[in-house]
């Protein structure tokens, strides 16, 4: 593989990592702001307010973990690709 190609693949890898991170962060923010509306409405109803808060907490924790996992997988994947490219680059020298 040509050094130029390896350089381009490294750039692409970094760009994909940036895009996933920015995309997931933005999606999470929108998701949270939209999900807040029904919870806010339901917590105004006295008898269900307490369980709704629990459900909201659980849902927020689960979705937060999912978004965090997506970021983690993307970073680990990006790191692995980066290592492979470094080795290819060293071999190409």
């Amino acid at each position, binding site marked *: 593989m040509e050094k130029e*190609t390896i*350089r*381009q693949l*490294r*750039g*692409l890898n*970094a*760009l994909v990592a*940036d895009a996933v991170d920015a995309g997931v962060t*933005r999606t999470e923010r*929108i998701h949270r*702001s*939209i999900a807040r509306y029904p919870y806010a409405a339901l917590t105004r109803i006295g008898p269900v307010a307490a369980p709704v808060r629990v459900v909201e907490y659980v849902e927020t924790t689960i979705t937060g973990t999912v978004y965090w996992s997506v970021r983690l997988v993307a970073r680990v994947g990006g790191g692995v690709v980066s290592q492979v490219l470094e080795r290819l680059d060293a071999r190409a020298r």
Partner: protein
Amino acid sequence: MDEPIVRPDPSHSLPERGISILNGMIGDYLQQRGNELALAMSLRHQGRPLALDNASLTAAHPTATRKLCVLVHGFCCNESVWTFPGGARDEERESYGTRLQQDAGCTAFYVRYNTGLPIAESAAHLDTLLAELVAAYPLPIEEITLIGHSMGGLVIRGACASARPESAGWLACVRRAIYIGTPHDGADLERFALGATGALKAFPGHVTQLIGDILNLRSRGTKDLGVGHARSAEGAAPWLASARHYLLMGTLTKNPQHPVGRIFGDALVRVPDATEAPEPEVIVFPGVHHLALAHDDTVYRSIRQICAGA
């Protein structure tokens, strides 16, 4: 003796074109992040970077002449935009540069750059590049013709206007500048994008805000196209007084006076209104759209004629 390995010109390949498009869209971001996909301005020979030293220039152009022409591509393109259609093999491919070399004895140099950077920044890079080229060139230079397509014309105009005192060498050699489909008065499409971004962001909805944000991700280079010249406190860059200037513009319609041709121009750039000033001279090519202006026989004939003039 073994035959030298001839590597194909990669500038026409999908990855290289894709990288140029990416640079146009988000090139300023790529540069800011230190991403290796960000293009640095360079001269290209057969699709590969050309080192600016005497030996490399002599090897690339063994029959170099005292007349130079420098071709600067437009937004989201690379130097492959200058190639005429047809010719599957590299040696069969023709461009304005190769034809000028044959017909007018001009030694052609192709610039590749990150079209997502602000036009003023690209202009400063071009100034440096041309100063280095003139310093390393193996022969005394008689004249330089600058040819820019679309944004490339704005970069040329900006480089001529903002050249540093140490750039006097190349600037004094510039006899003519040819701007092909260059939006000196700004591109309507970018103005539309600017308006759409503002409208979307004015709505309180999450989705409209998101679309507005995505639209606003476009590069500084793209945004500069809406203005049409290198942004500066002084406004539009002046025309270089010591050179002749030519605007080669296309229209979608065969009749340039047709309302569609007048409104949409070559699809991206409109023909400027007639002025009484002798410069720049405007030449219109009816029925030639924006991208085709960079590799069209009738346009070339005009360029050839311009280069044959004083």
